[in-house]
């Protein structure tokens, strides 16, 4: 049976791992919300500071899943975990910042430009974990369980043994991040549309 073994939700004001709130945003902090999570969770990966918001979101959620579920990734070879991510706004937040870098009399920023593609976050996660598996990033109008169900079915039937899925909406006004790990196991939360919708909204329920 395909099951969701672990998941992480990042919302505007709270960070949840496997349905439990691990942190709430400090509205008085000068740090961005993602930087607050990075510091408070004592993560150490200096490249984090170079990343755009999409990559920061994917990095944080995937690291928190790994931390809360030790050994979850070790069961797989370096090309057996596929990454299937999607969102609605592509890399629009970083695109806007890149335009700002040159539209106001400045010069186009190469360090922003390299993040003006939504799939860069997949590269960041692959680099950090040394994963050589399948990658896909789709742009969809809204979170759609069927997309993950369909494409995971394809991947799990053709060489991948686990799929790290993600919905990554992270713009100036909106944080809606949901990462979940799909595996073949005998017990667990079944990987179906109903459960996915429920878990994606976990944060709102608490």
């Amino acid at each position, binding site marked *: 049976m395909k099951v969701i073994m672990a998941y992480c939700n990042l919302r505007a004001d709270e960070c949840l791992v496997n349905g439990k709130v691990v942190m709430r945003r400090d509205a008085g902090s000068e740090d961005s919300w993602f930087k607050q999570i990075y510091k408070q969770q004592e993560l150490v990966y200096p490249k984090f500071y170079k990343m755009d918001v999409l990559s920061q979101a994917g990095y944080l959620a995937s690291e928190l899943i790994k931390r809360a579920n030790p050994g979850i990734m070790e069961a797989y070879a370096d090309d057996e975990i596929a990454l299937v991510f999607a969102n609605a706004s592509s890399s629009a937040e970083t695109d806007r910042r*890149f335009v700002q870098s040159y539209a106001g009399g400045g010069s*186009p920023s190469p360090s922003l430009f*390299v993040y003006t593609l939504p*799939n860069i976050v*997949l590269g960041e996660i692959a680099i950090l974990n040394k994963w050589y598996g*399948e*990658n896909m990033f789709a742009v969809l109008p809204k979170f759609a369980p069927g997309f993950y169900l369909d494409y995971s*079915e394809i991947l799990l039937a053709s060489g991948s043994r686990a799929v790290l899925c993600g919905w990554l909406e992270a713009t100036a006004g909106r944080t809606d991040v949901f990462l979940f790990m799909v595996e073949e196991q005998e017990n667990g939360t079944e990987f179906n549309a109903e459960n996915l919708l429920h878990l994606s909204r976990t944060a709102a329920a608490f």
Partner: protein
Amino acid sequence: MIYIGAEVIVSPLGDNAEDNWQALSENRSGIALVPAAGFNKEDIHLAKITGLSGHLRFQQLVIKALASLEERIDASILASDRTIVLISSTKGALDDNLHDQFSETCTSVMQQFNLSHLPIVISNACISGVLALNVAGSMVETRQYEHVIVIGCDVASDFVLYGFQSLFAVSDKPCAPFDAARNGITLGEGCGAALISATKSVFKNPPLELLTGTSANDANHISGPSRTGEGLVRSVHRTMEKHGTGAEEIDFICAHGTGTVFNDEMEAIAFNRLSLADKPLNSLKGYFGHTLGAAGAIETIVCMQMMRNNMLIKSLGYCDAGTSQPLNIILENGPKKLRTILKTASGFGGGNASLMIRNL
């Protein structure tokens, strides 16, 4: 069997696959010097479509390609709920709406062609086109859909040009993939579309067979190619293994070949590691420029035309060997029986993808 056919290209070389083929067989390039196009008003070589201007250029191209494809198939399948459209693109309608680059095009295409499903956008940098074709083949293989239409499209923009200029990655002459004097990419715009289906009878002209492939990340760098070609090696290896295809069966390789020093070097290393270095190989970037999310679709379609015509097309812009490992780059057009070909792509984010096409 998974069929692929009804192929369409809209590019600076023409509005359909046949006109594009005619241009390629005459080794005509779509690249031209555009005055003051650069960030500092430099003249820049670009492959732009004459007459494509104003608003909604992305949408115009996608609709034009799909309308042309519609004429080459049993058009009744478009409205079927067993049919879906995949659009592969990096920046979509960025110039029309920076904050929402795809919604309007997807909605318009759905309405205009009376589709049952909203198109799905696949955005994986320069491997988007090859990846979308693989997803399409897999969707048909697993019976999720009966028919999948892949439309790869990207349009030229200041945004992307200035970005590549900021990386010092734009060639000062038409790009010269694999050549010793190559020094960067030439950006292009265009659209390629094809139908992937398990039903042969929906194609008006005989289709070819799609041997769906795999993708693999380099796990190396977000904007620099791997020095070992590891991701590309793994992708091609798995694609060939999946279909039990031996190296001796590959008749031709349509490489990614962007014309940057490091990308082309990486590919040369990978093809040598794969024992495919002796295969006739080209890059089509010298004809179309780099069309980013459309490149994999457009170039796969050219492969199909090469197979239909049993003809190798020379790698435009190449003169002298310029990689540390040898490759068998096609120097002149020439006849060759093409039964099985390999198409590869690599891109930002460390992505690599490959597929094969077989002549029936």
